[in-house]
């Protein structure tokens, strides 16, 4: 067989094969299962409601709250400055710029933590960074920030500090203004660092 015929037959066969197989439209996961396990166990993706409250009050420019609940729920109530990316559409390319970036610190929240964690898992497996989950979700937010419970007299001092801060924060978010707006030190110290990344260059080309 001549080179020509080998090439002709080869191309034709490959063409038939590629025409018959389904296209690969999956977005490839970048983290392996064991890498994910390490990340999940480290729980580094968690931020507390207190931290979120503090960033909101101090108008931290790097904070971006992302509400992963349905648009209806979002309409009824959402945290200040939050944008709505329902978990069902999280893979759409329209939202990619929000979720895969190196400037902001995205904090995902839902009512509890189930949906926000599910969303986070998917995003993390795609290799995206700078996404976090608000611990306890909105339910916990209401219980602690909006309606803080006074600690019992025997509680350690830091519990009182937390309470004072929550009381003050709830004032900002809707209740009566009370004590000073300084958060307990240990909550503000461990603010996750935004991983700076060079803005992804779209693959260039042209002639």
């Amino acid at each position, binding site marked *: 067989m001549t080179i020509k015929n080998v*090439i*002709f037959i080869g*191309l*034709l066969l*490959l*063409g*038939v094969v*590629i*025409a*018959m*197989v*389904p*296209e*690969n439209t*999956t*977005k*490839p996961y970048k983290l392996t299962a064991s890498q994910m396990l390490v990340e999940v166990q480290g729980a580094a993706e968690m931020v507390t409601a207190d931290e979120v409250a503090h960033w909101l009050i101090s108008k931290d420019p790097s904070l971006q709250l992302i509400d992963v609940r349905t648009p209806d729920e979002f309409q009824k109530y959402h945290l200040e400055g939050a944008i709505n990316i329902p978990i069902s559409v999280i893979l759409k390319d329209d939202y990619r710029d929000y979720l895969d970036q190196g400037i902001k610190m995205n904090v995902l929240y839902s009512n509890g933590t189930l949906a926000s964690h599910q969303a986070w898992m998917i995003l993390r497996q795609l290799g995206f960074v700078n996404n976090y989950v608000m611990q306890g979700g909105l339910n916990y937010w209401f219980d602690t920030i909006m309606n803080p419970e006074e600690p019992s007299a025997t509680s350690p001092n830091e519990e009182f500090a937390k309470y004072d801060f929550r009381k003050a924060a709830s004032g900002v978010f809707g209740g009566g203004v009370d004590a000073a707006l300084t958060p307990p030190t240990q909550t503000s110290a461990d603010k996750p660092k935004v991983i700076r990344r060079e803005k*992804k*260059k*779209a*693959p*260039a*080309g*042209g*002639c």
Partner: protein
Amino acid sequence: MGPLVPQEIIGADWNFFIAFVVGIGFGFVLEQAGFSSSRKLAGMFYGYDTVVLKVFFTAAITAMLGLLFFSLFGWINLNLIYVNPTFLGSAIAGGVIMGAGFIIGGFCPGTSVCAAAIGKIDAMVFVGGIFLGIFIFAEGYPLLEDFYMSGSMGPIKVSDVLGISGGVMALLVIIAALVMFKLGELAEKKWPREEY
């Protein structure tokens, strides 16, 4: 996995080195195929030598199949591959002007640089012409900008426009190419010329 540089799997610093290596391969194959000869290139349009048709389509098909199979195996993410955007009006007008340049000058930019590398003086003049042509376009850009930007359709793919899968599109292109190769060989028999 791929493409490696846009995903930062290998550093962006390597990109220019890769470009250089790719260029060497490009230049070597063009020259080996005979694309350094304008008479061989022009033969395509008179039927006496259809090497352009054969090399061009075989290359396009090979790369097309490669991309589709790499995507199938998960080796490359096609979303990160540059797809040149379609501006219908300027693409057709530009193509028509380039086609005229091809038959008049006997080269296209890539082949002319390759031919200049082995000492073809006509190719060097052609390259000089390209410089001048681009300079004229650049200076006239304010007049042309509206037309240049009109009819933007974004980076669309033929398979999406036709509503078929990339694989089926590739098979259609392969069949069309094999038919054209056959016609090309018939033409070469009908209008035989000696090699240069």
